[in-house]
């Protein structure tokens, strides 16, 4: 079987086929690389939301005419930080936060260390995604909540976040996929995972088949995240009238 496969690939002019087949059939190593690809971005997404969610909320409620207006100076500082961090290309940002990674984790290499630059890059992105979701909120509903005597905190926790839930879930899906992509890129600089595999074996050692397999696994991962995210968002949205859906089909 593998003899035939090797001959087939070699007949196409692909080099180092036995080596590549050996890597791909070593399930343990491949699975570990997939795990590395997933866990660093997953952690980073979590941390990015811990920073980006409150930040996004502040960007919406803190503006003039918002639910809890904040000093103009503070708002423009926050906006500037978000814009600055978002305009630095990720590869450069990774290099720039090396001292920060050392400070927090004691090292700047390895998969775990990529969590720091991923979080720094993703937090402002998440803040904007949250901001976009919350801005979809109907002003009238907020006004009604104010008329009922809601405090700004209650408006955020009991009105804005629950009412924007489907959109926030879509944003989180988007964030997770983007961070997964950044994570693969981080493989280039000292990280592990499929990104590193594709780059080092595929590009560095001319292992074309490995590169394609790595990319296909990444595509499948993205598909899975997107499908789960979309399904969850749709399922949680109570605006979708069941009788209407029935009529449409």
């Amino acid at each position, binding site marked *: 079987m593998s003899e035939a496969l090797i001959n087939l690939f070699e007949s196409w002019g692909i080099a180092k086929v036995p080596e590549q087949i050996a890597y791909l059939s070593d399930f343990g190593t491949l699975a570990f690389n997939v795990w590395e690809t997933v866990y660093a971005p997953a952690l980073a997404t979590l941390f990015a939301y811990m920073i980006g969610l409150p930040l996004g909320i502040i960007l919406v409620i803190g503006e003039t005419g918002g639910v809890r207006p904040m000093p103009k100076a503070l708002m423009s500082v926050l906006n500037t930080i978000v814009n600055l961090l978002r305009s630095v290309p990720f590869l450069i940002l990774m290099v720039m936060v090396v001292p920060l990674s050392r400070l927090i984790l004691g090292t700047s290499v390895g998969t775990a260390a990529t969590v720091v630059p991923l979080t720094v890059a993703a937090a402002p992105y998440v803040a904007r995604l949250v901001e976009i979701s919350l801005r979809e909120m*109907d002003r009238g509903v907020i006004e009604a909540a104010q008329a*009922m005597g809601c405090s700004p905190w209650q408006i955020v926790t009991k009105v804005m976040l629950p009412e924007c839930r489907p959109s926030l879930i879509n944003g989180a899906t988007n964030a997770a996929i983007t961070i997964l992509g950044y994570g693969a890129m981080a493989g280039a600089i000292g990280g592990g995972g499929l990104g590193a595999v594709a780059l080092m074996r595929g590009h560095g050692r001319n292992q074309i088949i490995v590169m394609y397999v790595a990319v296909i696994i990444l595509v499948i991962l993205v598909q899975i995240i997107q499908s789960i995210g979309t399904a969850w968002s749709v399922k949680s949205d109570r605006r979708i009238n069941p009788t209407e859906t029935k009529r449409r089909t």
Partner: protein
Amino acid sequence: MSESIIQIQHLSKTFGDGTEAVHALEDINLDIRQGEIFGIIGLSGAGKSTLVRCMNLLERPTAGTVTVDGQNMTALSERELRAARRKITMIFQGFNLLMQRTCLKNVCFPMEIGSVPAAQAQKRAKELLELVGLGDKAQAYPAQLSGGQKQRVAIARALATEPKVLLCDEATSALDPTTTISILNLLKDLNRQLGVTVVVITHQMSVIEEICSRVAILDGGSVVEMGDVQEIFSNPTTDAARRLVYPGGVVPAQFPASTRVIRISFNGGTAYDPLIASLAIDCGVKVNILGADTRNVGGKAIGTMLLGLPEDSNEAAKALNYIQAQKNITVEEVPDYHE
């Protein structure tokens, strides 16, 4: 005379400043009595919404005072204001329900905010949904309801904190005439049953005529006329009032002096075409339609119409008697329209 629940004194509201200042309200004085249904009517941009928003301090007045149930609202801190707002609740043109919550949870919402125990809140919410005729929709989501049903849920929600005053900002403007009538009847019933004072903001005459006892006419940010609905409607003295009372911008002063003019209000009865036709057939009298602002839905008419009666006084009396005998129609003669 019952005591007043809302007192507004020398209220002004200006948006912006300098050359861009918009004087939305100027020196408003109002006294709304406990237990009445008070109407505020005006054309678009007259300042109606700004005025109601000043009543619960969603908008802070530039000058003047607002007293609700003996409490000077303008003097309260944000925190005290939030507590005071539980006594003066509001419903809106756009319903403003929480779309991700069931109807029951929507009605529970103000009680949740006021830390009412969940079990007690649910019990009261169920009762309120029954009261507005939606006992069977407790577990439905707002997206599954019609406009009229949504407004009923909003009304139940507004009543959850046992308010003294219910403010209705164009609460029926997004509804069709039949549903409008049913919501207005509900407000009337609630006013009678619970004694809640209702403030109705609208640009539709028919709404005021249907449920209000007194009305203030707002024009360009000022109250230009105020008093009993019947008085104001039968004898509007300002241009702004006439524009609202007479349909389609008709100016009665331009009618021939010999014509008697009557104003008919349709309150959801038969449509106006059959009325005019049957007037001709049954009485042999032809009347002149000078202006009409009626909407016809499912054979029911809502709105007003101005008719010029025949010059012959016998025929005029005959026509008037005939129209007065109709159901769901109120008739008034337009007096002294030639100044």
